[in-house]
């Protein structure tokens, strides 16, 4: 663990975004995770994505459960709202917060243990409800805080650091998210920020349930030979289906790639996703073929990464419930207590 604070001094040419913040302004406290932890790279990617999207830090709420991954919100967005909840219960707390104040940007950070074991039910229901959020699972396949036992996402046949072979089937969170109706589903790798940062940006821009499964090697317990979540293994088996650029509504869009190799997706908020397709036959608007493709590739030993599915016009929980456009926590007394005549009107409608 590093004992000194990260020095405030920064590069003299460090850019400011349109809000006047530098990237450093989106950082948090210095990480207490093991040196080299993939999670720290994901934190850095979140910092960069929020900076590049000019998000006001005080309009972001970061929520997490328990585990190495769930410690990380301390290490980014130090000026944002935060809630470190009970193990596996981040989705419920996030859903509640989102219902009360739909105007904040919600970022749920969880791990494979937090989401695929104790919180599996919570994960599933937040996906099917379509809570407007970014849900990132920092997936390392082990319980790092308790010294490296297999987690529920650990691949069958993977070897632990002690040499034990995992005999249980792995839970595929991406497949579940697709089945359960998430409107943005992606997988990425902590060691590839060129891919990860635009995916986080696109997810933040997505107005629905956005799920990112991010492979994040545990350098202490799961970065050895025989592991399927090590830096080397993921790099060797990474099969990216596309490469993404996020173009905000005010930027000019230029396409300079061969026809058929690029797909433009305009999201509901006006931002455009430019996808350079690496597999031209992959259709990321079709849940069924996405699922099939992934299962095929997985059987062939590949790890499919990239933007796997996106619905450019999603409906979220507030849409389903037809809640007020004004956040519930901002409604004033006159709206909340409309008076006897309004009640009489409602009662009359029910007669």
């Amino acid at each position: 663990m590093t004992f000194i604070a990260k020095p405030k001094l920064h590069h003299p040419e460090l850019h400011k975004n349109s809000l006047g913040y530098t990237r450093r302004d989106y950082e948090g406290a210095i990480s207490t995770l093991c040196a080299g932890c993939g999670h720290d790279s994901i934190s850095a990617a979140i910092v960069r994505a929020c900076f590049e999207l000019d998000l006001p830090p005080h309009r972001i709420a970061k929520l997490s459960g328990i585990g190495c991954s769930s410690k990380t919100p301390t290490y980014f967005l130090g000026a944002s709202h935060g809630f470190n909840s009970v193990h596996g219960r981040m989705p419920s707390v996030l859903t509640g917060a989102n219902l009360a104040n739909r105007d904040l940007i919600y970022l749920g950070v969880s791990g494979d243990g937090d989401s695929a074991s104790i919180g599996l039910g919570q994960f599933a229901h937040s996906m099917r409800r379509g809570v407007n959020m970014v849900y990132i699972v920092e997936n390392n396949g082990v319980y790092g805080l308790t010294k490296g036992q297999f987690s529920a996402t650990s691949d069958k046949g993977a070897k632990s650091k002690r040499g034990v072979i995992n005999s249980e089937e792995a839970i595929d969170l991406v497949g579940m998210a697709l089945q359960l109706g998430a409107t943005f589903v992606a997988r990425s790798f902590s060691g590839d920020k060129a891919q990860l940062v635009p995916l986080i940006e696109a997810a933040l821009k997505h107005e629905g349930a956005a799920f990112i499964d991010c492979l994040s090697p545990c350098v202490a317990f799961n970065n050895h030979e025989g592991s399927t979540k090590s830096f080397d293994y993921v790099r060797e088996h990474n099969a990216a289906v596309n490469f993404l650029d996020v173009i905000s509504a005010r930027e000019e869009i230029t396409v300079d790639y061969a026809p058929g190799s690029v797909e433009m997706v305009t999201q509901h908020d006006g931002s455009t996703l430019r996808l350079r397709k690496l597999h031209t036959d992959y259709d990321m608007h079709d849940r069924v073929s996405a699922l099939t493709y992934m299962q095929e590739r997985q059987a062939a030993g590949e790890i499919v990464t990239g933007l796997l599915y996106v619905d450019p016009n999603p409906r979220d929980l507030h849409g389903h419930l037809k809640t007020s456009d004004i956040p519930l926590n901002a409604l004033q007394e006159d709206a909340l207590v409309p008076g006897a005549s309004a009640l009489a009107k409602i009662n009359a409608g029910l007669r």
Partner: protein
Amino acid sequence: MQPTDIKDPDYFHKVVDCQWACPAHTPVPEYIRLISAGRYADAFMVNWKSNVFPGILGRTCDRPCEPACRRGRVEEEPVAICRLKRVAADYKGDVSDRMPPAPTTRNGKKIAFVGAGPAALTVARDLAPMGYHLVIYDGDTRAGGMIRSQIPKFRLPEEVIDEEVGFITAMGPEMRLGQRVDSLKSLLEEDYDAIFVGSGAPRGRDLDLPGRQEGAANIHIGIDWLSSVSFGHITKIGRRVIVLGGGNTAMDCCRSSRRLGGEDVKVIVRSGFEEMKASPWEKEDAIGEDIPILNFLVPKEFKHQDGKLIGMTFEKVHAEYDAKGRRRLVPTGEPEHFFECDDVLVAVGQENAFPWIERDIGLEFNEWAMPVVNEITFQSTNPRVFFGGDAAFGPKNIIWAVAHGHQAAISIHQFCQGTDVNDRPPPMVTLVSQKMGIHEWSYDNGISLDLRFKVPHRDKVTALKDIKSEVELGFDLKLAFAEAQRCLNCDVQTIFSDKLCIECDACVDICPVDCISFIDNGDEADIRTRLMAPAHNLDQALYVSGELKTGRIMAKDEDVCLHCGLCAERCPTGAWDMESFLIDVAQAGMSGAEKACCSK
């Protein structure tokens, strides 16, 4: 790019910007750390080994190290390196027992020195322990040269000169003070094996303007006047004084005048204020003593009445630049300015003068009447004669004289031992890991956010009353510690082992100044544009690794690295390490290793 060759001693030496910029290559971060540790005597000895006059230079150095200081590139101002040097000198206590003793045996070689200034004393210090018989001549009755004669005592007290010159005279050279050398030829005819000329640039330039003769009684040449003040021959000046010139001598003249009765003292320069040669802090101190500096005024005439100087006239000019950027001072057409005065001090530069060197002794002079001197060996065309200090290449600063002295000493030693003077000894380099524990280093890697501390000054009224009362009081220990903590420890190098790297990005993520990138290889110009932060400072190297597993390379821009060691702390495999780099530039007679031992 090819992987960086970190075995080349120059590579990391350049990263230690201050040490690289110091003509004598003083290991600055090394002594600053010793100051932080309260080891003032050790800090002094590190200085003494490199620059010979820590207490003197800690007050008067031109500080080429400070503009080079990396801290000045990541915040507003560099570390107050010069004044920390003074701290080491002020608080060192008695170090006489750490000085090399006078040798008990002679090596049979005899060297003469012309002048007892900083260059000659440096040569003498380097050669004395080896048993040379050293004979030092100087026209003045006390050793020190311009250090003693030209620097006012309110900037440099006599005791400091006495002590540091005394360390050298105690090493046994034969001091022939008050004996001016009038003929190099006759010196060469004596039995000296080699002669070192460190006679300085003793002639102040004059201004041949109308009225110069008539007003002569009240017109003084700056350096001669300072010298007379220094030796107590002059104790007064008129109430109204004009100082001509924009260098440090002019600053010393005007500030000395304020202490000798000058109430209305002004400095008048031809150029613009910004282009003045004086160090910014010297100008600041002069202005602080109510001395206005008037610029763009070209002196025209000394006005006199009844055989007495009454003032001077000036022509107002402004600067124009031609296509090649050369400056020309063009009259503005305004009527001439007239300033009344009682005395004028002319400090418009100084020159070398060698009337005492015969031109038929095999010692060539160039077209500017300067001796032809080898820039590396400091040997003249007469192989027995070596030059250094201002006598070698014209007026520079004390630290340059010291640097020359070290090199000349190496040459003289090799010449006397019959080896080739062109065969320069290599430096001594050590590179030692600072790792003590999992995230513990044997240097203090926390970065202080303090801005530069000001050196306390004596109250102006008191200071102006006595020309011997030192204006700067120096840092006290608390301030010294705080200022020392601003040093970034640039000599603790980031060492990268590509074989150990797993490309986890932890170093990239933690680096506070974005200096580390993992990218595809390319040529340098291309790589400089593709880094985490563009590397525009071409004076600063890129540290490039060999190819990594993914085919990429690690490229680190050395420019604004804070040497905080966080890359190494966050590295899971020890691919980054923080290693202390100490380079001891060779000095005469001792291998670097022996020198390093005697200083610790």
